[in-house]
């Protein structure tokens, strides 16, 4: 079967099924009695199993099958859902995801999952715990990549050590391109047998001769030779990549015995499960290196350098400018065929523009997706009950921003979970619901995307923060007095500051929130904190759309053209001079019963006037920032237009009330008004 043809589809669908599994598992955890959810998961898993078996990914199919068995047992009410069981199922899903990723990157999807499989079997079997525990323990030994010895072998090894021989464990790795593996094995054995005795080998000698091994085999060996000499001698055999000689001593043999004790004590199975879980983690790091030899997936997606997209964008801008010129020329000439052609070209350009612009936009969902599982794991680690709500996952952000924003968000969510949300007991004592809520929101506003993380936890203890900031020298006692509540909150973002008395494993990692702040600021955004002690905190991240198309209202002041984002505009209006009122040295108007202050843009922007304006009518753009309104006074309205947001570059930064620029149809630059800055 031509596999490649279907591989892309397989990978995409597998990812979808696994994502569905994760989501449903999280749901199941909330409603452990709802067996219809189990059915959903079962269906996804079943499809996945079928697909991977068809595609020939046996490991993937096998693990899915084991997981399916557990799900089936739950479905048939043979076993009850417990968080411990879900932990293992989640672990399986993690493994499956890794396998699919491996396949997508051209690997063969192989992965050592014995420990997880053993636990799945144990869950499935229910009462056959003893046997399963033994299996688990047995896997440990293999995972340590050490040989196991029976009593006889141990005695031989111990005796030879007593007789001043050395006992070694030798690991020989042949080169990947080794052609005659059996011959090399023979040569290795020949050298060894000249100088000592081979006690055993893994795989067995028979298997080695039949070349039934990857690249590596292990030998237990007794000799009078020094380890270094042995190693050098073995390296002389050609096509040998690596030889590791580990001297065995009594200690090693003893630690072997410890594992044996574990084997003999299945009643302590919780302990064993933990021991077994660790080797899995270490094993994850060692996906077989030979998987690289697999061919890369002929994916129909291509990765494009962002710089190339920028160049495309700029070329496209040039086209837009020429379109503008053509349109005005065709209007002047008024030739029917020319008009028609220009019109059609404009339409095509419009579609093209949409494609070019949306190429860089990605939904924040791609980042948010990983959080439910992370929150679940963390809340279990912390023994807290936490409900994560995600709102606005469909909000789009520029690709470059998406790539960067993941880590800061992980950091902030960890912080909320660790320091924000209190333990269930403490929450109950405070009269709060036992379960804490963390809300992750994303939304567009003006030229910005906001991402907010709100928790209903303990909030920030300002006294403590201030004391710590003073102790760490982040602020001086004098400036401390002048700080507003918000400024005090934001001290926790200062470098060299960490509120945790003990650096915890969850949010600490020895790194403060200053890293978050730095990352966000490097993206041209900023972060602010609102917090009420005892009620909760909100971390609000404001990010610019580094590149996006926005709708604006173009306005004219004297000969200058400015763009006002449509998202800030409520409406435009023409007012009479006599309608302007004075209040507290501020000119205001009555707009639908509301007092709205006027902002004269020509004054704010210091537009050079050739002659004084004394029109009877004023053109006013009513804009909004949250609940606040303001009327921007301009000379005239030009009209609504879609524009491409451009940055002013690195030389002109923080220009008051200007958030960027755009290039108009005539090739000139127009500045974009930052309405948020105009309203305090």
């Amino acid at each position, binding site marked *: 079967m031509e596999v490649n043809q279907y591989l892309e589809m397989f990978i995409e669908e597998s990812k979808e099924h696994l994502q569905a599994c994760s989501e449903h598992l999280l749901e199941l955890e909330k409603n452990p009695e709802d067996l219809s959810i189990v059915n959903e998961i079962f269906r996804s898993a079943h499809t996945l199993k079928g697909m991977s078996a068809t595609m020939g990914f046996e490991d993937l199919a096998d693990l899915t099958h084991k997981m399916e068995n557990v799900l089936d047992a739950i479905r048939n009410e043979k076993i009850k859902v417990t968080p411990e069981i879900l932990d293992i199922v989640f672990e399986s899903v993690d493994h499956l995801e890794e396998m699919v990723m491996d396949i997508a990157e051209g690997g063969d999807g192989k992965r050592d999952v014995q420990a997880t499989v053993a636990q799945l079997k144990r869950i499935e079997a229910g009462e056959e715990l003893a046997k399963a525990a033994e299996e688990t323990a047995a896997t440990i030994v293999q995972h340590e990549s050490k040989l196991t010895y029976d009593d006889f072998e141990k005695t031989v090894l111990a005796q030879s050590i007593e007789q001043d021989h050395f006992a070694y464990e030798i690991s020989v790795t042949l080169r990947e391109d080794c052609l005659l593996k059996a011959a090399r094995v023979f040569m290795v054995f020949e050298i060894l047998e000249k100088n000592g005795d081979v006690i055993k080998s893994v795989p067995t000698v028979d298997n080695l001769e039949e070349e039934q091994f990857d690249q590596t085999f292990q030998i237990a060996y007794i000799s009078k030779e020094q380890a270094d000499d042995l190693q050098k001698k073995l390296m002389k055999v050609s096509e040998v990549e690596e030889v590791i000689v580990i001297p065995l001593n009594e200690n090693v043999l003893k630690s072997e015995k410890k594992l044996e004790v574990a084997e003999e004590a299945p009643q302590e199975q919780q302990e064993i499960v933990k021991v077994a879980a660790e080797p899995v983690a270490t094993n994850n790091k060692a996906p077989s290196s030979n998987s690289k030899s697999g061919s890369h997936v002929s994916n129909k997606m291509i990765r494009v350098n962002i710089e190339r997209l920028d160049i495309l*964008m*700029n*070329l496209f*801008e*040039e086209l837009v*400018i020429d379109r503008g010129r053509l349109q005005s020329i065709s209007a002047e000439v008024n030739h029917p065929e020319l008009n028609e052609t220009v019109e059609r070209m404009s339409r095509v350009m419009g579609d093209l523009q949409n494609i070019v612009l949306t190429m860089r936009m990605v939904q924040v969902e791609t980042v948010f997706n990983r959080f439910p599982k992370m929150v679940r794991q963390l809340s279990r680690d912390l023994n807290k009950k936490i409900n994560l709500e995600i709102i606005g996952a469909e909000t789009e952000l520029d690709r470059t921003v998406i790539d960067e924003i993941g880590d800061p968000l992980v950091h902030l969510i960890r912080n909320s979970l660790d320091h924000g949300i209190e333990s269930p007991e403490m929450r109950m004592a405070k009269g709060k619901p036992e379960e804490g809520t963390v809300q992750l929101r994303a939304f567009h506003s003006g030229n910005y995307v906001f991402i907010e993380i709100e928790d209903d936890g303990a909030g920030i203890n300002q006294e403590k923060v201030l004391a710590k900031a003073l102790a760490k020298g982040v602020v001086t006692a004098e400036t401390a007095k002048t700080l507003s509540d918000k400024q005090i909150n934001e001290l926790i973002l200062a470098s060299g500051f960490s509120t945790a008395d003990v650096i915890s494993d969850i949010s600490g990692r020895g790194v403060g929130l200053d890293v978050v702040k730095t990352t966000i600021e490097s993206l041209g955004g900023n972060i602010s904190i609102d917090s009420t002690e005892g009620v909760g905190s909100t971390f609000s991240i404001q990010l610019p759309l580094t590149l996006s198309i926005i709708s604006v209202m173009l306005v004219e002041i004297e000969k*200058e053209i400015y763009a006002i984002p449509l998202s800030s505009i409520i409406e435009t209006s023409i007012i009479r001079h006599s309608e302007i009122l004075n209040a507290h040295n501020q000119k205001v108007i009555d707009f639908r019963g509301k007092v709205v202050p006027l902002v004269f843009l020509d004054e*704010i*922007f*210091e*537009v050079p006037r050739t002659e004084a304006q004394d029109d009877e009518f004023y053109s006013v753009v009513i804009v909004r920032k949250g609940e606040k309104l303001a009327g921007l006074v301009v000379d005239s309205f030009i009209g609504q237009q879609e524009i491409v947001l*451009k*940055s*002013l*570059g*690195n*030389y*002109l930064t923080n*220009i*008051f*009330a*200007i958030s960027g*620029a755009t*290039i108009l149809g005539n*090739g*000139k*630059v*127009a*500045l974009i008004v930052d309405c948020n800055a105009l309203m305090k």
Partner: protein
Amino acid sequence: MTNAVEQEYIKVIVFQLADKEYAIPVSHVQGIEKLMHITRVPKTPSYVKGVINLRGVVTPIIDLRERFNLPIVGEEDAARIIIITLEDMEVGFVVDSANDVLDIAAGSIEQQPEVVGSLEEEFISGVAKLDNRLLILLHLDRVLNPLS
């Protein structure tokens, strides 16, 4: 001609401002443009003329005469915008004219004499004597950063 000889020279773009000749290493120069429409950017120092559309990239423009506190003249045909890049900044300088590319010997560059005393002294990294011409080498960092 060997490498040893090449190392002793630096290639510069020479431009005219008032009655003096200035030089910028060619490695910093992105291009030379004719004057075009400049969009004023409010609330910036007066020497920031505004921004231009440089083939789709919004580029800030600095008037070097104003930056150096030299008398201001009207627009003339010979005036040019020299686009320079420094670190991650791209900026255009308005100059009276730009028409020369020269190799100057590294050895002929001298420290700026301390007596000049005008504002532009801050912006000068050295002077180069070339036959009977005197080229003033600009200190681009300082030209682009606000004065302390």
